[in-house]
């Protein structure tokens, strides 16, 4: 009997596992379907209320705006064929592309564009006047030109030369209901389904004005976290996995995955609350900047895949970034100590860093920072909180000493720097300098590009001089792409562009 039960157990186990694996194998992804792993749960698919980066990267494939970014960060005409901006920067005029159809088969007209922009600007009669896209607060009217039904104009209450990038806002059919749950746009893929914490499925839109995409289906599969995603990647159930860390990417077999990367236009900041003792002393903030070894942080958290920052803008923004500021803060413990002594903190002090626990990179950064700052006598106490708590207490409530976070923004310098204006909602570090406020207010009124560049450089210089915070790195955006695929491009922003992706013909 003893013998019998042993055999029985062994037999059952073998049968169970054999059955399990055999059936798992049969479910290989059919050709023509590309699976992209994502780690955030989608919130909304409404192109006007969407703010979360993780939602934007999906709906990039569904909706299109008058203009559209390419993977180099250029703004190109899309649903508009061309545009003009008045000299005073208070009227934007667009020519609407003909022959574009929405996913529901309806032809796109200037009427739809006007409706969409009015909806985004909170100008519809049904709206309470609050713009859904905050930057459109300056829009006073959107209308079809009287002499040309194919052109529309956007009239502003006050000049704003920085508004162009917001015309990437998605266009939806006039009076369309349910864009948040059942999106309908003009993009290369149309929405199929969303099942909570499982996936979002898109299918190719055969009537896309630019020609049908190469793959039939795109599945955005929701993974619990990066490790779960990595397991799926290794087992081949995911074809594309963005936002990887370098050490994870290196674990993948080069035959199966190509690793693509580019600067992410993100700013990882060791945010110092400018209103809290002793961080309200600029000398203390300066000392911290000298005490942090950015290269070590990048080595520990990103395995070296990041660009060290000195100021609030990533070099990924090209000419808007001021390269003359590079290397201002060399790692210098002696200088940090003497600055602290000057500020009256020769014996150091204690600070708390509140980090969102779901972001391993930020938690790890905090650990490395704590070790580095202890060398100048600053005790950094780490407190992990969950994301919802972080948003409420730290970001919205501003109850914190320091935190570590990545600031994301559109590929537009104004969007990056706007948060440093004294009354900005995004100014969670409580930075305040009237000079910055003044320049930032002037920039939208300026149309000359060179003048704008020098104004941005000036803002960056002031932020640096005030030691607004301690800027750490622009972490590299790393994407693993199956070698079976081609045509995938990495964007310096949160975008998963699947239009040109196709399976290699063997």
């Amino acid at each position, binding site marked *: 009997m003893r013998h019998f039960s042993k055999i029985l157990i062994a037999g059952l186990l073998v049968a169970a596992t054999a059955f399990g694996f055999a059936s798992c194998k049969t479910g290989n992804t059919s050709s023509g379907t590309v699976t992209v792993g994502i780690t955030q749960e989608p919130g909304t698919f409404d192109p006007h209320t969407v703010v979360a980066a993780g939602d934007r990267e999906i709906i990039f494939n569904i909706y299109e705006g008058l203009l559209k970014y390419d993977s180099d960060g250029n703004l190109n005409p899309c649903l508009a064929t061309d545009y003009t901006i008045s000299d005073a920067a208070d009227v934007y005029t667009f020519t609407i592309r003909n022959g574009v159809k929405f996913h529901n088969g309806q032809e796109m007209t200037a009427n739809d564009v006007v409706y969409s922009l009015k909806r985004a600007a909170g100008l519809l009669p049904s709206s309470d006047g609050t713009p859904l896209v905050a930057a459109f607060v300056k829009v006073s009217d959107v209308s079809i030109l009287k002499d040309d039904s194919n052109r529309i104009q956007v009239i502003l209450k006050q000049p704003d030369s920085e508004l162009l990038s917001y015309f990437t806002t998605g266009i939806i059919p006039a009076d369309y209901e349910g864009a948040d749950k059942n999106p309908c746009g003009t993009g290369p893929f149309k929405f199929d389904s969303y099942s909570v914490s499982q996936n979002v499925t898109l299918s190719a839109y055969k009537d896309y004005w630019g020609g049908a995409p190469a793959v039939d289906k795109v599945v955005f599969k929701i993974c619990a976290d990066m490790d779960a995603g990595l397991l799926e990647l290794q087992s081949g159930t995911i074809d594309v996995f963005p936002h990887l860390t370098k*050490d994870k990417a290196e674990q993948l077999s080069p035959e199966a995955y190509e690793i693509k990367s580019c600067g992410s236009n993100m700013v990882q900041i060791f945010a110092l609350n400018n209103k809290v003792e002793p961080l309200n002393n600029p000398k203390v903030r300066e000392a911290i900047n000298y005490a942090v070894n950015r290269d070590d942080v990048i080595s*520990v958290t990103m395995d070296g895949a990041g660009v060290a920052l000195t100021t609030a803008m990533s070099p990924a923004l090209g000419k808007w970034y001021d390269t003359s500021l590079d290397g201002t803060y060399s790692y210098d413990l002696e200088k940090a100590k003497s600055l602290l002594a000057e500020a009256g903190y020769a014996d150091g002090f204690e600070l708390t860093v509140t980090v969102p*626990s779901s972001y391993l990179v930020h938690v790890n950064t905090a650990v*490395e920072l704590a070790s580095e700052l202890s060398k100048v006598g600053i005790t950094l106490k*780490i*407190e992990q909180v969950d994301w919802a708590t972080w948003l409420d207490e730290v970001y919205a409530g501003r109850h914190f000493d320091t935190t570590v976070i990545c600031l994301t923004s559109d590929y537009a310098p104004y969007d990056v720097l706007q948060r440093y204006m004294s009354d900005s909602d995004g100014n969670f570090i409580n930075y305040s300098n009237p000079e910055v406020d003044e320049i930032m207010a002037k920039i939208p009124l300026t149309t000359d590009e060179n003048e704008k560049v020098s104004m941005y450089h000036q803002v960056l210089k002031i932020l640096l001089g005030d030691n607004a915070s301690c800027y750490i790195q622009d972490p590299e955006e790393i994407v693993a792409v199956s070698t079976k695929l081609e045509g995938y491009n990495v964007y310096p922003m949160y975008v998963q562009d699947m239009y040109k992706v196709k399976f290699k013909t063997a």
Partner: protein
Amino acid sequence: MKDPRSKSFYIAGFILLGIVLASFILSLIWTPYDPNATDPASKLMAPCAEHIFGTDNFGRDTFSRVMFASKYTIFISFAGVAIALLLGLLTGLPAGYYGGWTDRGIMLLSNSVMCFPGILLALVAVAVAGPSMFNVVWALGLVFAPTFARVTRVGTMEIKQRDYIMHAQVMKIPSPRIMALHILPNLVGTLLPATVIGLANMTLFESGMSYLGLGVQPPDASFGKLLADAQAYMTRAPWLIIFPALMLIIYILGLYFVSEGIRVRTQKGGV
């Protein structure tokens, strides 16, 4: 009553616990390296002469960190169990002694807490009092209290039937005094193994909380936290998993053996 097996269980248990305890005591006065000092230049080194357990992604010495972690593991399990035991006694004794509505009310509360997700409870504790080890300990104590309440209640109900308690009641000794002086000492036999098992379960639960970022706050660590952190380096640096896992198994096995020893000794026949 004496069973030779109880002795061997004790010996095995105390040897295993001794290893963890020794590393804890030693860590108070000496560790090979500062357990929290990072050194990116020597990160993820495999075990070698300088770092016998290797280093982690910050270049911290794993051996030092494992020693350091034993302190938090021991503290969390003991403090958590102490709180759970105290709450369990405070509720289980009256429930079992008075019976009736007191019993129903207390058990209702205890069942409700038991049904309530532990993670949500931990989150509340952290939200109310800030993320720190002490608050996690409170949450753990609350999560485990109903188990102790049940054991205490059943034990009390049984002891209550005994003659000497009846005598005491007839002699009009106040009830709290009967519970404290006559029932509680007789519960030790039932509660001791439950307490030792509780220590083990507490350690496991804490490692699960660390996995979700709710446990010990970095750079402090427990064995569970070390394991949770090591997950990201599973294939690249297996030594980060092996050594903390070994220590964790040693600790928990040690606790089990001791509890088996107690059970074998107190319960005839050996179960």
